Structures are given as C-alpha cells and as structure tokens.
C-alpha cells in the first residue's frame, strides 16, 4: 500500500493525477450517471419488495430459499452499478486502477475504517454464511430473526418486535449463535421446575404428550425431555421443533400452557419459592 501511495504522490508531482484517471466529464455523462443510480435504486427497492412478496406467497419449504437470494441480487445490482459508474467517469487502465485503489484504501483506512470493515465482512458473510435472511441468531445481547442483509449490516427483528441493526464486522469479534442455520425449523426449549420428589414418569409423559400433540410441532424431528438437578428444584427441559421457526414464541407458549394445564390436573408439585413458606401466612 505504501508503494501505491508513493506512486500516487509521484504521479501528482508530475501533474498526471486527475487527467489520467478521470475521463471527460460532460453533462450527458453526469445525466447518465444519475440515471444509473436511479435505476439501481428502483431495482433495489423493487427486488426487495418482490422478494418479500414472493417469500410469503411460496410454500414454507421454499420461503427461506427465496429470502436468502436477496443479498446476492442486491450485491449483483450494486456491483453492476458501481462498475458502470466507474467505467463512465474513470479511465480504468491497469495503472489507473492501481492508483485509484491506493487512494481509496488511504481514504477508507483513515476516515471509514469501520465502514470498510463492515463492507468487507459483508462480502465474507455472503460466502461464509454465519447467518442468512430468515435465520434466528443471537449476536451479543440481541436475539431475533434476520430480516434484512444489507451491505453494511443486518437487521434483526427481536421477539419484542424491535428492529436492531448490527454491522457485519461483528463477525470478526463476536460469537454468532444461529438457531436454524438456513433450515425452516429451530429448536425450542421449554423449561419446567418441579419439586424434587415429583413423579418423574408422570411429568415426563405429560411433557412428551404436550409436544406430540401441539399443532405446531415438527413431527419429523426428534422430541426430547432432559433433566437437571438444582439445589432447589428438579429442572426438566422439553426440546422440540416447531414446523416454522417463526412460530417459536407461540409454540413455546402453547407447550407451557397445555403442559401446565395437564400438570395441574395431576396436582404436580412445583418447588417451594425462596423465602416463602406456609408459616408466613
């Protein structure tokens, strides 16, 4: 890079800078450039709207495939637009390209370091695929569905319906936990705490039944109940998959609601609350 800067400095000193790189700028070219930007903007908007519309129309099994095609389409549109604009205004010989790259690197290095880092991370994310549109991911403190994959970052819709924008450069430093990794299903875990002398066979039977009889359950995937012991309670985890990852919250609610109703019918004992006993009454 230092070589490039040095070369550029030399070029400047010889008075070859602007004339060598920039082609004749005319009103027509400026007009063409504006038209290109406008067309690209419209195409981006239309592709986004069309993609969203199509993804909601097709059967669920194709929904994520359609959604995941959007970043690529956007990258193609932007790529073609940028190349067209460069060809329109610049003389892109090998030397000019080298000089231009050096200049841009210098500018980005100082002024837009994080932005450039996010852009590059976005390109890497397209190929490494730590997340896709439609995935449910945890990045830092934020969990939600990836609803948009932009140049600079992604947008997450959280369970409380907030939209969180996260730059791509988080992939360099943060751990990314992806619940479904491109699949339509994501595992849901419903936690239950019972008194330590609870009838485990009965409770586990009810929990399995709750999962097998939920309308949301993906029956093609395994349903498991696991157990853990804490000093104050017996902890059971019902792990199952909804047919559509988007239903995870409503699915968990359904599992909890129906399980609790059935458990109540059998008078299943829950753990005593901290600091609470019958003598307090």
């Amino acid at each position, binding site marked *: 890079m230092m070589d490039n800067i040095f070369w550029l400095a030399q070029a400047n000193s010889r008075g070859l800078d602007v004339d060598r790189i920039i082609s004749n700028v005319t009103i027509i070219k400026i007009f063409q450039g504006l038209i290109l930007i406008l067309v690209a903007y419209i195409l981006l908007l239309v592709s986004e709207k069309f993609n969203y519309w199509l993804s909601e129309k097709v*059967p*669920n*099994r*194709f929904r994520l495939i359609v959604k995941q095609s959007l970043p690529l389409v956007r990258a193609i549109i932007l790529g073609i637009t940028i190349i067209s604009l460069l060809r329109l205004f610049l003389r892109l010989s090998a030397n000019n390209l080298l000089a231009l790259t050096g200049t841009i690197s210098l500018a980005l290095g100082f002024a837009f370091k994080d932005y450039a880092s996010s852009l590059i991370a976005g390109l890497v994310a397209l190929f490494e695929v730590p997340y896709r549109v439609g995935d449910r991911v945890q990045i830092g403190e934020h969990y939600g569905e990836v609803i948009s994959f932009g140049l600079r970052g992604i947008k997450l819709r959280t369970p409380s319906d907030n939209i969180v924008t996260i730059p791509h450069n988080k992939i360099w430093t943060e751990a990314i936990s992806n619940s479904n990794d491109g699949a*339509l*299903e994501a595992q849901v875990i419903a936690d239950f705490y019972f008194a330590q002398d609870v009838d485990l066979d009965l409770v586990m039977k*009810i929990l399995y*039944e*709750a999962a*097998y*009889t*939920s*309308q*949301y359950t*993906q*029956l*093609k995937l395994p349903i498991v109940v696991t157990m853990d012991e804490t000093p104050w309670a017996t902890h059971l985890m019902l792990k199952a998959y909804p*047919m*559509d990852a988007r239903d995870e919250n409503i699915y968990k609610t*359904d599992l909890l*609601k*129906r*399980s609790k*109703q*059935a458990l109540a019918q059998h008078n299943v004992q829950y753990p005593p609350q901290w600091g609470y006993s019958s003598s307090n009454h």
Partner: protein
Amino acid sequence: MEKFKLGLFKAKISFKYLKNILPKDIKDLGTESKKELTAAQVNEVKQKIASLTTHPVQKSAIVDAFQQALAQWQQQPEGNNSLVVLSSPVSPLTKVISESLTSLESDNLIETKFLSWQARLHDYRQIKTQMLSSIETSTANIQTTSESYKLVAIPRLEWLFLRCIGGLETIEALRDLVAGDSSRFWLIGCNSWAWQYLEKVYQINAYLTNTISIPPLQDEHTQEWLQALTTEFNLNWQADNEWLQLRIKETKQATRKHQELDEVAKIQKEYYEKITDISQGISNVSGDLWWRSLKIDDTNTDIEETRYAITRPKLPDLPILIIEDHYLLYSLLLHGGMSLVHLTASLGKSQSVVKSRTQYLLQNGVIGKEQNLLYVNPAYYPRLKNLLGNNNFLVD
C-alpha cells in the same frame, strides 16, 4: 411440429380457462346451454355416490391380504395377529372394510367384533373404556380350534384418539392389547396420515407390522365404479364445447389409436383417464369430482325430464388460506372428520377462533358438515395434500 402446435393449442386453452379471460362469445360456446345443479340435485347425486359399493378390485385386495395374514397367524399363533388397512384420509374406510368382510366367506370365523362407531366419542376420555368394553364383551367361553378364529375389526383407528394431552391413551391400550392377545385376529383400518402420526408418537409399526394400502383405482375401474350413475343419469357427453374442441384437435393430430371407438366412447375414455389422474385413483375424490362435472343440459327444451351434461373434470381451486387454516385442515384430515369441540381441543385454541375459520372454510366449500361432524370435501384433498406437504406438515 404437430406436437408443438398441439401443445401450443393446449396451453392456449388452459391459459384462457384458468384466467377466465375468454371473450364472452367464445367462452359461452360451451356453457350457454348448461346450468349448475341445484342444492337438492347435488344432495341427491351425493347420496347416490355414497351408496355405491366398493370396487371389487379394492375388496379383493383386502380379502387376499387378510387371508394371507390370517393363514400366517394360524400357522404361528404367537406371531403377528393383525392386519392394518391403510387408506387416504378421505376414503370411506368403514364401508370398505365392512363390505370386504361381507365378501369374505369363511366357515371358520366363529365370532366377529366390529367396532361400528359412526364418529369419535364426544368425551374423548371415555374412548378407552368404551373401546375396551366393546371389544372385551366377546363371548370368551367360545373355544377356538386350530382352524377356527375370532376376529376384531376396528375400521377407523383415527376415531380412537384425539391429538391432545390425554387423548392418545386408547392407542397405547390397544397397542398393548393386540400385542398381548394371541387368541384373536385384529383387522384395523386407519388413514395413512393418522398412521404416520402414530408411527412418530408410538412407533406403532413395530407392533402392528402387517399393513396393506387400498390400491388406487385405474381408469377402467373408475369407469366401472361410476357406471351405474352414468347410466342412471342419461348423460349428454358432447355438451362441453371447449373440451370437445381440444379433443377433436387431439384426435386429428395424434395417432388414431381409438379409431375403432365411437365418438361418445372416446370422450368417455378420455373423461375417466382425466378424472382418475387428478383424483389419484381415490374413489371418494373421483365421486366428488364426478358430480362437480355434472351440469344441467338445457339444449333440448322439448323434453320435460332433467337432462345432465358432463363437462371436463377439474380439481376445485382452494380459496385464500391463512396459516391457521393449514393447521385446522391438517387436524381434520388427520382425525378423519370431527366435531367442533374436538377440533378445538386438538388445536389448543379457543372455540371462537376455530369457529370463525371453520365458517370461512365451510362457506368456501373446502370442508363440509354432516351430523355435526366436520370433514374435508374429498375433491379438495389432492390440492390440500400438496399444499400441506409443501408447508412442512407430515403428510402421506
């Protein structure tokens, strides 16, 4: 080139047909003389279809499988003592099994317990008790010999369970009962969606290993099956102008393989090929599509008697369905018809929510209601199967 032209012509016709953009004068060529059936006529036709007996090819498939499974069990009484007959969720399994048993002539059959429920019991918690009392009231003092046997027939296994907590215990009991009772042979009918579901929940295939699927009807079987109705209704086979245009074009351009047949026979052959194809060989779907292709023929106004014309059979389009409808329809198909109370319990929703969607589906004809039981109209089954399968549901 000829094929290309034919294809182009077909595409043109289909496109116009689907989009309904034919100019009025052309569009009305085939329909101006035909009216839809009245509700009373539809009911009459549906009753006649319901009274048709099962096609012999399906009965003989069940009887053959039954005799084979029975012979194996008699040779090895501790072995498999059951046969499960699987069908589509819209097939009339009770009727198929009872007619198959009637055609079974066996002197060695000394007792048959036929669980002839017409629906799932209202209180699903009582299903187990009721089922056991119906089956266990068998005359236990009758001793069987090495050749004689007792039979228990359960034509609709899906009516013994409800997909909710506590609604599956009858299946557990039955599974253990069949496995532990080598003194009787069990003939069980079940729709294939329910069977797959029970396989996921209880691995039921490990207990009831002998299964047979009702064979789909072929073109000629469908024709034979509907023959009685065709004769009775004295149909005009040449009333659908659009269809005729297509057929005449095909006949001209294709090989003259049916040249020996007369014009009506050609149309009939084509009709039954089409109806069998789109109904996937399921008799109930064929029957439903058959009456939907019937129209009142007004070409000859001099005749007082109502004449019927037949038009090209086609699957009815599904209305706009939301995701809640998918769950509801899957539940109806899984359970093979159910009351609103049971439907609500199986979906774990409030009755008001379920009722509004049920009304929508009823109004659009996707589902029907008979004796307080909701069921999916068979003509919609092929499209629903495709739709639910594509939306990640466990279908056949």
